[in-house]
């Protein structure tokens, strides 16, 4: 018999044997699948958050220049703009106006911003709102104005030009877009002052050279590149995922111990089966191969089931079990759907991480039962 035929026969026998112990097999697969589900959910969720952050940052400026005073960020003067624009390779420098506003009514922090495109610029006295702001303020009808109170006895009225859709919610949920003049008077920002400067560079490979030159011209400033921000997000999500996986791995270890225990305490029926097989001429090797097939089928099935369930949990249901831990928390939180981001690295890692401990835990008990003498097993 060729090796392939031998394994086909063994596989055939194993499937039949597993079907005979249907309830026990299904219970084992279900518990194993639950552990895989836990690990896979954490990995999928973190990966799609990373992807989301990457996609979001694609639109961020190449370089952000901030002014520092006493180690804290302060407003930057407009005189820095021509100094930066004069650097070769810089295609544009724009002063940005943005800040945070604490809403005392509901305890939320809004991001207030002056848009950089004319199309998004609201007329004087009006604002454009992110989707969560009217929701949080409980605006019942169209045309309700937005009243913002900076201190006791102060009330500033803005009419709502329009509300942004949910498709950009991850970025714009807490956003209030204002006209420049309104912004300066609302926050009391003198003319010629900006929150920070956004610099665009023609060739991204020259970014470090541009930063080096800019540091000489503005020694007090802080330079944040898009890659810096992206890296920080990556690390943050990686770390959170790692912690979750490490926690879930404890569950996996517990399962491995359970599986080892289960495999070493053979039921009378299984022991008889092995005894008969050996009595009719099966080799220890055949029994081990059969038992390894059994383990392979169980872990393969559990891996598939757990992964598919995790996919549904994360990408269809929005990961209700893990979202608070991995996303972070805020009063004002965007509603968003995750885009599936799965690759071979993730699946390979998950497969090794889940099936290897199971295989390692069951090999010794499998060998012990397979190597025993037929009469000893059946006795």
């Amino acid at each position, binding site marked *: 018999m060729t090796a392939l035929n031998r394994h086909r026969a063994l596989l055939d026998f194993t499937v039949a044997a597993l079907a005979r112990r249907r309830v026990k097999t299904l219970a084992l697969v279900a518990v194993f699948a639950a552990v895989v589900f836990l690990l896979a959910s954490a*990995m999928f969720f973190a990966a799609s958050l990373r992807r989301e952050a990457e996609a979001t940052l694609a639109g961020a400026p190449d370089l952000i220049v901030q002014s520092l005073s006493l180690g804290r960020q302060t407003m930057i003067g407009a005189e820095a703009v021509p100094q930066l624009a004069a650097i070769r390779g810089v295609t544009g420098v724009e002063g940005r106006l943005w800040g945070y506003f604490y809403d005392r009514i509901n305890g939320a922090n809004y991001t207030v911003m002056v848009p950089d495109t004319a199309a998004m610029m609201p007329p004087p006295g009006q604002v454009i709102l992110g989707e969560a702001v009217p929701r949080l303020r409980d605006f019942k009808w169209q045309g309700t104005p937005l009243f913002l109170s900076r201190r006791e006895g102060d009330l500033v009225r803005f009419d709502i030009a329009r509300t942004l859709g949910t498709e950009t919610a991850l970025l714009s949920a807490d956003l209030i877009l204002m006209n420049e003049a309104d912004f300066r008077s609302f926050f009391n920002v003198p003319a010629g002052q900006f929150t920070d400067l956004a610099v665009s560079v023609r060739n991204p490979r020259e970014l470090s050279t541009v930063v080096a030159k800019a540091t000489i011209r503005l020694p007090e400033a802080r330079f944040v590149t898009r*890659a810096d921000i*992206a*890296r920080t997000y*990556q*690390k943050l999500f*990686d*770390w959170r*995922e*790692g*912690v979750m*996986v*490490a926690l879930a*791995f404890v569950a996996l270890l517990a399962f491995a111990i359970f599986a080892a225990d289960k495999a070493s305490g053979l039921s009378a029926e299984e022991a008889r089966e092995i005894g008969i097989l050996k009595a009719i001429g099966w080799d*220890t*090797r055949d029994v*081990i191969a059969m038992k*390894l097939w059994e383990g392979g089928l169980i872990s393969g099935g559990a891996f598939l089931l757990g992964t598919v369930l995790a996919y549904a949990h994360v990408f269809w249901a929005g990961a209700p079990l893990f979202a608070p831990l991995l996303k972070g928390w805020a009063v004002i939180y965007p509603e968003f759907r995750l885009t599936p981001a799965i690759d*071979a*690295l993730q699946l*390979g*890692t998950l497969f*090794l*991480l889940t099936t*290897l*401990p199971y*295989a*390692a835990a069951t*090999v*010794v008990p499998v*060998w012990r039962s*397979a*190597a025993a003498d037929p009469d000893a097993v059946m006795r």
Partner: protein
Amino acid sequence: MIFHTPILTLLLVSALAALVAVWSAGFGISVLRHWDLSSGARGQLLLERRTELVSTLFALVMAAEAAALFLFVFNADRMAALFVGAMCAVGTLNANGYGFPALYGQIASFFAAAVWLVLDHVDRLGRDYPLTRVKYAAVLVIAPLVLLTGALQLAYFLNLRSDIITSCCSKLFTPANAGISDEMAAVDPALALAALALAGGLVLASGVQALRTGRGHGLFALAGAGYFGAALLAMVSTIALYVYENPNHHCPFCILKPDYGYIGYAFYLPLFGATALALGLGAVSPFTARNSLRTPLPAVMRRLTLWALAGFAAYGAVTVWVIARSNLILFG
């Protein structure tokens, strides 16, 4: 940076491998000292039984190590985004002094594991376990290698700090730099391709010879090892240029990136597989005359030789395809 899922997985694999290697080495010593197939003593019976367990465990762990080698490189490539200056796996591996030694250790463990698996497979063919002593002597060599690789990997991951600036591949694989990588990059493309073709011819000749006569597998193994070296040399000096369509980019790792359609795996999977088989055949070749192996062994060796030849041919075919498809003109 240890809280990174692929890193945790890699550490799990090497911890398991180290555990199994140490235990198998301990068992190997008792096999070398007490193995006596003619004896019917209880100790011998126990040893015989236990060899089944060690074979199964070792095979399992070695298969996991092979998967871990690819995971290690794949992950290094993915983590490049976390290091300033890194653009592919090279930057990540260069982030501290343990990265490349850990990779080399993994590659060495992979080949050692493959040789051992072939020995094990052949040993099981004979009724009287003809290669048991050889196999367990080999475990005593492999175990320290596995431990060393695990230690290097742990040191690498524990010392991985993302706030350093690392060098990218264009810095390492350039003729203007000192070191083996740049010497490989500086080799004349025509010479490198000629060496690859020559090595291919030798592999083919020794392989066909081995298939025909059932002998000369040691020579085939040597030719395979030579082909492996020539293939890596040609990759750095010439093939990479064709893949990137850039006469100055020599990196053998960037071809693993999705930007190039993961074509690197089409090169490396057959190359590593074929070389491992060739080395395994070489390791088995001194034992073809053993009585119990005379009947079953030739068919197995024939099959393994054919697989190895197919792997080497696949590398050559992908090379030809890449060069034919590329818009880069290096000659003429």
